[in-house]
């Protein structure tokens, strides 16, 4: 009661620093240990960043040059990409025909970009994809419309990586949905078969599935039916992805309230009508973010085909690096393809995050 504030004496709050200084104080120097961390990081940055810029840009060999010339330079040898860049991107594909895979990749990326817009989802998009895949297959394989035939042991590089990923997902996705439905089925035999398949595949590393596909499929099939290496790898990848996608779809199915199933039954819909019209549209919408994450994992996983001897992006780079002279340029080569993988996967993951937040608000608004 003794403290009295007299009018006229009231002053404003103490003046706080604003702008850059305030930001620095709040975000970099708010406690003593944060200040210490900031100083350590800035000191490390001063040591590392200039050296990296030197290596990447200033001291690098930018023009085409033999590997010997690179050895004298202190920086990166981008001459390696001059020499081997097209081999890395296209593998053994005939040099003069490489516009075809380029166009195919552009077409595929365009389709993916269009599919990213939710407004485009619908029948027309499905038709566009079907046409696009036919066009891509025609471009890569040739043998019609005046395009020369290129056998698939010459396919490689980025088109192969994208092809294995897209074809793998196109086949694995419906298979995964069927497996997920089977796992949630009331029929014990169907359920047992689906559970056994999913757990078997998810329990083992992809590489054993690929070994199985590449070594056992020829044993499993009659002699006269031979499947080439690429198709075997693709089958292995599809089998693998289907099991993982099934679990993601199952997660979506489990999130649908029972009332939806019961309402569909009450309307007299058959099992497939119920799933197609009521349950799956909702379950798949919920499952989109984890589905995209599974897609990203799958795109990265296709790099494992190098172990069974295919020339995908990583395989082509490895083979380019195995040539005498270029061997020490592994940093440049791996950095280049790491950047390609990163751009693809990072943009997909950002897209899935954006989609997630949009779907999240949508659900909240409805409640």
């Amino acid at each position, binding site marked *: 009661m003794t403290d009295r504030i007299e009018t006229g004496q009231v002053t404003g709050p103490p003046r706080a620093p604003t702008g850059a200084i305030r930001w620095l104080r709040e*975000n*970099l120097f*708010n*406690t003593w240990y*944060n200040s210490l*961390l*900031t100083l350590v*990081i*800035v000191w490390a940055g001063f040591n590392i960043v200039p050296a990296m810029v030197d290596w990447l840009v200033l001291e690098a060999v930018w023009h085409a040059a033999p590997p010997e010339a690179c050895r004298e330079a202190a920086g990166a040898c981008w001459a390696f990409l001059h020499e081997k860049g097209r081999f890395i991107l296209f593998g053994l594909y005939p040099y003069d025909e490489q516009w075809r895979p380029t166009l195919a990749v552009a077409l595929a990326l365009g389709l993916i970009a269009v599919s990213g817009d939710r407004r485009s989802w619908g029948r027309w998009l499905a038709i566009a994809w079907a046409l696009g895949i036919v066009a891509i297959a025609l471009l890569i394989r040739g043998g019609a419309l005046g395009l020369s035939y290129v056998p698939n042991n010459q396919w490689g590089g980025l088109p192969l990586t994208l092809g294995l990923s897209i074809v793998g997902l196109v086949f694995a996705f419906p298979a995964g949905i069927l497996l997920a439905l089977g796992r949630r089925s*009331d*029929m*014990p*035999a*169907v359920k047992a*078969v689906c559970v056994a398949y999913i*757990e*078997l595949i*998810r*329990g*083992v*590393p*992809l*590489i*054993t599935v690929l*070994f*199985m596909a590449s*070594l*056992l499929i*020829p*044993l*499993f*099939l*009659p*002699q006269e039916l031979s499947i080439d290496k690429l198709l075997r790898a693709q089958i292995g990848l599809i089998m693998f992805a289907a099991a993982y996608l099934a679990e993601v779809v199952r997660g979506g199915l489990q999130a649908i309230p029972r009332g939806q199933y019961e309402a569909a039954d009450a309307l007299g819909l058959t099992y497939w009508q119920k799933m197609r019209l009521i349950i799956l549209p909702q379950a798949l919408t919920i499952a989109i973010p984890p589905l995209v994450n599974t897609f*990203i994992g799958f795109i*990265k*996983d296709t*790099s*494992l085909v*190098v*172990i069974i001897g295919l020339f995908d992006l*990583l395989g082509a780079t*490895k083979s380019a690096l195995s040539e005498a002279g270029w*061997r*020490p340029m*592994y*940093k440049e080569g*791996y950095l280049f*393809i*790491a950047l390609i*993988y*990163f751009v693809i*996967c*990072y943009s997909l*993951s950002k897209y899935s995050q954006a989609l997630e937040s949009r779907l999240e608000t949508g659900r909240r608004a409805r409640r």
Partner: protein
Amino acid sequence: MAVVSESETSRQRRSPLAALWNDPRYRAVIYQLLVIAGVVFVVGYLVSNTMANLEQRQIATGFGFLDREAGFAISESMFSYDATDTYGRAFLVGLTNTFRVAIIGVVLATILGVIIGIGRLSTNWLVAKLASAYVEVTRNVPLLLQLLVWYGVITYALPHPRDADNPLPGVFFSNRGIKLPAPVADIGWLTASVGVLVGIVGAIALARWAKRRQDATGQPFPTFRAGLAAIVGAGIVGWAVGGAPTAISVPELAGFNFRGGMTLTPEFAAVLLGLTIYTAGFIAEIVRSGILAVSHGQTEAAHALGLRRNQVLRLVVLPQALRIIIPPMTTQYLNLTKNSSLAVAVGYPDLVSIGNTTLNQTGQAIEAISIFMAVYLSLSLGISLFMNWYNSHIALVER
């Protein structure tokens, strides 16, 4: 009305098959019979083809080849092995190598992942940005590529043994691998590890007793410090009982290579580094989301109860965060173990790599792949059984 029902019943009578089909119970049975028949047919078809193919290629089936002499050397092994040993022993070497890299990798990835995950939540802008850059880069580049990069760095960028990097006394980085000082084998180290084990058991018993006492009387007990003291003390006692060995073998340059000490081969180091760095990115995200999932009200309520900062963390935040963190974390541990099979790409002799060599030599593809599957499947099933037990153990008890 009567006319309609009569015609319906007559139609049903006319086709009893349709009646069966329209009864969901019978339809389910028919579906399942079809599925079983399909599976049996496909499996039978594949088996008969396989038999025919094996006969034609004159490959004997069965695991008899495991007793034959392997004839190939393995670059690193945790127990004695040479080319005259059997395939069975070679598989065992591969299995222990897989476990070695997986167990060390799990420990290191957890430490690094927790640091990065907490770093992403740091109030320091630079730390948070660096941590999220780490997560984005490691998660969006294929693991196999990362392994190859680390292998390249170790074999190309590191110097020859003669001018090896020597960051700490006794530690050498060279393109022959990483050399570390190691204690000379002695009975004393064995008794010391027995002592540590005894200490751990004692610490667990102590923690149980302390919790019971606190539940009954409310008196707290410094469980963590006392437990740590018990473990360290018992270890030291065991070490002293075993004769208190102090000899440590320090690597020394002799000619073109090092002598003494402990070696991490370039292959092992590359696989370990790659697996650790890759998995840490995933673990960091799990840790971050687990901590974020504990609502702020919980922390505030705990403060309002008068708990100290470390008590808030230990008694309120961590138990709730761990409930969210641990299931995906075990998935990551399992993934790391499965991903260690990529070691074949850099030539680390893990299970898959040795199985692959065996399979190329003997042609026993089915047997080798069944061994892979059996090992990884029993691991996965074992861990998921543990997870189910753990989940039911820590599940929230609701009304």
